[in-house]
């Protein structure tokens, strides 16, 4: 039986500005899943990233609000200096708990809480980055039956994060940046066909 996917989470660090532009600009306007992103960054740099991604993406890109209902076809970015978490009732919450792997927002925190909520309905993606945040998260997504993707390390501006994710042996697909959006799209169309 084909999985019925419900949400996408993306973790990205150094080199993320360009990577996110490439990936998000390729998503079609009929892309029906919500996308939640942790991009490591400083608190002050925030609005610029959201504004510029919004210009380049056919979907609505916004900074996540506390207690916000997760809506399909919307791209949420974790605010600088806050962890982004998914609640079981499919709302978002924020926290200022200690940094995880020196990071706040932390990719692991988003991935682990999203995996607990969406289980097999979750797709997790690790992109370029110079640390190993996200590896524990990739493991929980896999353990919950979700689908995991890593950017091909050779095509990443910084390969540490993809390499660390792949080293967990919990990554299903290793793709170039350009391949990821079309892949997601195909996946969705397939799962729609099997539903009918």
């Amino acid at each position, binding site marked *: 039986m084909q999985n019925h996917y419900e949400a996408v989470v993306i973790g990205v660090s150094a080199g993320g500005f360009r990577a996110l532009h490439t990936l998000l600009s390729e998503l079609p306007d009929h892309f029906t899943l919500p996308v939640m992103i942790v991009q490591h960054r400083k608190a002050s740099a925030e609005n610029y990233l959201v504004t510029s991604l919004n210009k380049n993406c056919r979907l609505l890109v916004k900074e996540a609000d506390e207690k*916000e209902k997760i809506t399909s076809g919307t791209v949420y970015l974790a605010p600088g200096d806050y962890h982004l978490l998914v609640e079981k009732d499919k*709302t978002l*919450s924020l926290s200022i708990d200690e940094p995880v792997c020196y990071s706040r927002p932390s990719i692991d925190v988003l991935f682990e809480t999203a995996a607990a909520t969406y289980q097999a309905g979750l797709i997790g993606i690790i992109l370029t980055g110079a640390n190993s945040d996200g590896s524990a998260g990739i493991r929980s997504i896999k353990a919950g039956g979700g689908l995991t993707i890593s950017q091909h390390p050779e095509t990443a501006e910084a390969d540490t994060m993809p390499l660390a994710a792949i080293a967990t042996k919990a990554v299903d697909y290793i793709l170039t940046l350009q391949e990821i959006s079309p892949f997601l799209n195909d996946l969705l169309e397939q799962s729609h066909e099997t539903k009918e």
Partner: protein
Amino acid sequence: MDNEELEITLLLEAMQSRYGYDFRGYARASLTRRIKKGLAETGLQRISELIPPILYDRDFFNKFVANLSVHVTEMFRDPLFFKALREEVIPYLKTFPFIKIWSAGISTGEEVYSLAIVLKEEGLYEKSRIYATDFSDTVLEKARKGIYPTDLIKKSTKNYQKSGGSTSFGNYYHADYESAIFDRALKKNIVFANHNMVTDSVFGEMHLILCRNVLIYFDANLQNHVFQLFFDSLRPNGFLCLGSKETLEYSKEKDNFVAVIKRQKIYQKKKTHRGYHAESL
């Protein structure tokens, strides 16, 4: 409900019935992470195994519960908020002969000392009383002392300057080897007290309430409960200040307040009695 959720529900139930600490309305995702972290430190396997030691061992419980809360804070956190407070709210408060302020969830006290400094500089301190509360005695004790590691001073000074501070931050503390000891005079009109926003009730009528970065840890129902508590604790036209990512926007209490400085999350209680507003429209 999966087993893990069930175990957490039972654990929270046990803590509530045994000790009156009620975490049942806290946002689950973050609470779950903290419970699991606490569990990992004990070496036990399952969350439900925490229940016997919690019921029978007070010390175990105290340690466990201390780790469930997040106490991260700093002086003049979000300097632009303190600037807005100074420029937009304080002038209004100056018109009163005496003002009462409640700073709720103060953690180790940095927030309330920042507030005291603003009040001093604006000439309002002498006619103010500040109630500084938290539900953790451990952090309250630190807050009472007002002694902080010196390595935090650089950040604090920068925040102070950005917040529109009118003198030198160095005037407010004296530095020892490793600690900055805050001026005792700042404490004169501060009353430190244990208060739990979930289980305790109104204790006065305030002109201003600060409750920052506490409500993000509560679920929507508990937020409503606390907003109601704040509503009942405020004079008409009193101010409520939330953390920069917190909002009244999605709450039932929304219509009882006006967002006076939206960006800085400063709200003002409407003059009307609660509930009347909707009907009178």
